C-alpha cells in the first residue's frame, strides 16, 4: 500500500487533495480528531509531514512524504460579542474570520503580513504581527488558548476561553511563534475588541531619519496610535520613506490624537487617507511581504531602530522594509543568500537582536532555520521541547537550520 492508499483508508477519499507541483500527496483532515489520527499514524509509520495552511505564506516546498493542510478546519464554533471572545479552527482564512466577526460588531486587532486569505493557524504558528502590534501587542496577546496536535498524534489543550487564566503552564505561548515545531494548531480561542468607531490613517513622507524622529516625538507626546509604521519607498511605492499613523478607537480618543499629531510632526504635514486609500495602503503593505522569496523580522530596543535599519541597508540593501520603531520591530523582505542570512544573524546576535526567518525557499529555510544564534542555554531547552512534542521527528520544520 502506498502512503496515499493508507491515508485514504484512514480518513476517506474526501480528505485527499490534488498534489502540488512537487507531487507530495496533500491531505486535508476535516476535524482535529482526524489530524490526531493522521499524525499518530505518521509517527508510527515514520512518515515525514509538512504542515500547510492556505499555502499563501510559507513556501510549500519542504521535503516530505505528506503535506497536511489545515484548510478544511475552517469552522468558527463560537463568537461571543458580549464577552469579546471567539473560538475558530486553525484553517479558517483571516478574511473570512474578519467578516464573520465584523457581522457581530467584533474585531480581531491583528494585521499580519501576507495575503488576505492566510489562515489563522499560520498567523499564530509564525507569530507574524503587523503594524497593529504597536497599539495592540504581539500575536500572543490576542490568544486565550489553543488546542494542538503533537507530532505523535496527541491532542493537547492549553489556556481557555476567558480573559485571564493561570491554570497550568502556558503552552499557548509556546505554540505562538513555534512555527509548528511543537505541534499542529487546530483550534484557537481569541480575544476580541469591538470594531473601532473611528479609524483613520495619516501618512507623512520624508527622509528616514526625519521620520524616525517624528515617530519618537509621537511616542514621547503620549499619543496612542493603533499603528505607527515606517515604510521603505519600494514597499510603499512612493518616492520617499513613509511614516503611517493609524488612529483607531472611540471618536473622542481619535480626535484627541489627531490634534496631537500635528504638534508632533516636526514641521511636516501628515496627510489623511480616505478610507479606501487607507485600506489599500495597509493591504499593499501586508501583501508585499508575501511576494519576494525571503522575509524575516528582527527585534531590538526602540532606540536601536535607526542603527538596525542602517545595518540592514548595508548588508542586504534597502529592499522592502517596514518598521515599528517604537516597538523596536523591523520586517525585511527581498532575496538573500544562505551565507548573507547567516552572517546577518550572527552580527545581530552580537547586538542581542534576534532574527526570525519567517519565510524563505526550503534551501535557505532548511540551512538558516527559523531560529538560531540562541542566547545562553536556550538551545538544549528548544531541542528538549522539540523532542517532547515530536518524538519521532514527523513534523518537517526548519527549527534551527542545519
Amino acid at each position: 500500500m502506498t502512503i496515499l492508499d493508507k491515508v485514504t483508508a484512514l480518513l476517506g477519499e474526501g480528505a485527499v487533495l490534488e498534489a502540488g507541483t512537487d507531487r507530495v500527496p496533500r491531505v486535508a483532515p476535516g476535524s482535529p480528531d482526524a489530524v490526531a489520527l493522521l499524525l499518530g499514524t505518521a509517527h508510527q509509520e515514520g512518515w515525514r509531514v509538512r504542515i500547510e495552511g492556505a499555502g499563501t505564506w510559507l513556501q510549500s516546498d519542504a521535503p516530505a512524504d505528506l503535506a497536511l493542510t489545515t484548510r478544511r478546519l475552517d469552522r468558527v464554533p463560537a463568537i461571543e460579542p458580549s464577552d469579546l471572545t471567539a473560538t475558530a479552527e486553525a484553517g479558517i482564512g483571516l478574511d473570512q474570520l474578519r467578516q464573520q466577526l465584523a457581522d457581530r460588531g467584533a474585531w480581531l486587532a491583528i494585521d499580519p503580513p501576507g495575503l488576505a486569505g492566510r489562515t489563522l493557524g499560520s498567523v499564530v504558528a509564525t507569530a507574524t504581527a503587523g503594524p497593529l502590534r504597536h497599539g495592540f501587542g504581539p500575536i500572543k496577546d490576542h490568544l486565550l488558548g489553543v488546542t494542538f496536535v503533537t507530532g505523535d498524534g496527541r491532542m493537547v489543550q492549553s489556556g481557555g476561553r476567558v480573559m485571564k487564566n493561570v491554570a497550568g503552564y502556558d503552552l499557548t505561548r509556546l505554540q505562538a511563534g513555534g512555527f509548528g515545531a511543537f505541534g499542529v494548531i487546530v483550534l484557537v480561542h481569541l480575544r476580541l475588541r469591538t470594531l473601532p468607531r473611528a479609524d483613520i490613517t495619516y501618512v507623512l513622507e520624508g527622509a528616514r531619519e526625519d521620520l524616525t524622529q517624528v515617530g519618537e516625538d509621537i511616542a514621547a507626546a503620549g499619543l496612542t496610535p493603533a499603528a505607527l509604521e515606517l515604510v521603505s519607498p519600494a514597499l510603499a511605492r512612493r518616492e520617499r520613506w513613509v511614516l503611517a499613523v493609524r488612529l483607531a478607537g472611540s471618536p473622542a480618543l481619535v480626535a484627541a490624537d489627531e490634534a496631537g499629531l500635528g504638534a508632533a510632526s516636526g514641521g511636516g504635514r501628515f496627510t489623511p487617507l480616505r478610507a479606501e486609500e487607507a485600506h489599500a495602503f495597509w493591504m499593499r503593505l501586508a501583501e508585499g511581504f508575501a511576494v519576494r522569496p525571503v522575509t524575516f523580522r528582527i527585534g531590538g530596543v526602540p532606540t536601536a531602530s535607526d542603527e538596525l535599519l542602517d545595518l540592514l541597508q548595508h548588508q542586504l540593501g534597502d529592499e522592502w522594509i517596514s518598521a515599528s520603531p517604537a516597538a523596536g520591530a523591523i520586517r525585511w523582505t527581498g532575496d538573500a543568500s544562505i551565507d548573507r542570512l547567516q552572517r546577518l544573524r550572527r552580527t545581530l546576535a552580537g547586538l542581542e537582536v534576534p532574527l526570525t526567518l519567517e519565510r524563505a525557499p526550503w534551501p535557505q529555510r532548511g540551512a538558516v532555520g527559523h531560529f538560531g544564534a540562541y542566547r545562553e542555554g536556550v538551545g538544549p531547552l528548544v531541542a528538549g521541547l522539540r523532542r517532547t512534542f515530536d518524538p519521532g521527528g514527523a513534523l518537517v520544520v526548519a527549527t534551527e537550520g542545519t
Partner: protein
Amino acid sequence: MFPTLARDLAAIVGETHLRQARAERVTYSMDGLPTHRRVPDLVVLPGSREEVIAVVRLLAALGVPFVPRGAGTGLSGGALADEGSVLLVLTRLNRILEIDKNNRRAVVEPGVVNAKLGAAAKPHGLQYAPDPSSQSACTIGGNVAENAGGPHCLKYGVTANHILALEVLLADGSLVELGSPGGEPGGGGPDLVGVFVGSEGNFGVATKITVRLTPLPRAIRTLLADFSSIRTAGEAVSAIIAAGIVPAALEMMDQSCICAVEDSVYAAGYPRDAAAILLVELDGRDTGAVEAEADAVADLLRKAGARSVRTAASEAERERLWQGRKKAFGAMGRLSRDLVVQDAVVPRSALPHVLDTISTIAKNYGLVVSNVFHAGDGNLHPNISFDATNPTLKHSVEVASAEIMATCIAAGGTITGEHGVGIDKLRYMPLIFDAESLGAMLAVRRVFDPDERVNPGKVVPLHACREWVSARPRAVA
C-alpha cells in the same frame, strides 16, 4: 537531609541568613492562604545573584529539592516547602539594576517589591502596570512566577505582557537567557519567556528580570457607582464591555466587603446600604477624551440601574477609593479569624448568573462569602470568612469552594486567573484539563527540571497525567 548541608549553605550566605531553628522556620510555613501549612527543613536567604547560583548548584550536587519564594504573599500555597526541601527566599535580591527611560524598560532583581519599582519609574513619567493588591509587599520575581494580575491589568495586561527577558537559573545550576532586551517574541527562538512566566517556580529561578514600563497616564477619572443588587452591577459590567470601552480598571465589591472596609481604618466612603459597588477608572493622555469616555461610562452605569454615580473630585479622594479596594482583603480580617481568598474566572456575560449561584452556595452552607474582584476581566474573588479551628466549618468551606469552582467551570470559566494553582488547586486541575494535556505540562516541566526538584508537588497533579516521554536526559550528578 544531608548533615553537612546547613554548614555548607551557611558558608555561602553567612550564618545570619540561614534559618535552622524550628521557631524561625515556622515563620515561613504559610503564604497568604491560611489553609495550607508546611514547615521547611531549612530556609536560606542569599544576598546576591552569585550566592543564589552557589546555593542552587550545591543543592543540585546533593539532589535536594528546593522552593523559590518571594515575599510569601501568594494565595495558592505555591511557595511552601515540605520537609526534605530547602526554602530559597529571594527578598534580599532587591536591587533595581537599570531604568532605561528611552526604551521604557527596567532590569531588576527578583526580590524587588512591585510598588518600589513603580515608585522608581514614576520620576521618569513611567509605570510598571501590573498592580496586584499585595503590591506594597509582593516581589517582581513572585509576580513572574505567578503571572500576577491586578485591577489595572484590564487595560494594561497581566505580568506576562510586561516581561521582555529573563535570566533563569535552572535546577541543575545552569544559567539560561530567555527573550531579548527588545522583547521580540521569538527572542532568538520560541517564546520561552512566555512559557516561563506563570510556571509557579517549577522551571527554575528568575535571577534577573527585564520588564516593560508604560507611560503614566496624564488624565485619570475614577467613578464610583452603587447598585441595589449584585446582578444589576454584573449587568452594568457587561454593558460597558459590550460598548467597546476599555477602562483602566473595573472592580466590583459586594455589601459584605463594603461594610468590612467601611468598618476598618481603610474606610473609603463607600455606601454601606449598596448591594454592590463598581469602581471604574478611565485614563489616557488627553483630558477631554478621558472625560468623554467617563461620561459615556456614567451613562451606561445609570442606564444599567446604578442608584448613583460619583466621580472622585480630587487625587486624594481617588487614592482613598483605591485604598479601600486594595486593602479589602486586610479589612476582611475583621469578619473572622481566617479567610480563604478564592480566585476563578468566568466569561463576563456569565457574571450575574455566577454571582447569584455563589450567593446560593454561601446560604446553603451558612458561610459568609464576600466578593471583591476584577469584574472587567470576569476574574472573581469570592472570599470565605471562617474559623479554621472549627473542623465542621473548615469542611464546609472546602466543599463550598469546590462547588464555587464547579460553577465557574460550568459557566465556561477556569479555576484561577491570577493566584495560581500551587497546592490549593491541584485537585481542580483534572476538571479543566484532560490527562493528555496534564501529561504535556509535566513533560514540559521535565525539559526545564528533569528531576522535578524545583517546587515539587505543585501545579500539575501527577496522578492525573497520562505518561509522556521525558525529553531531556537527567543531569549527571
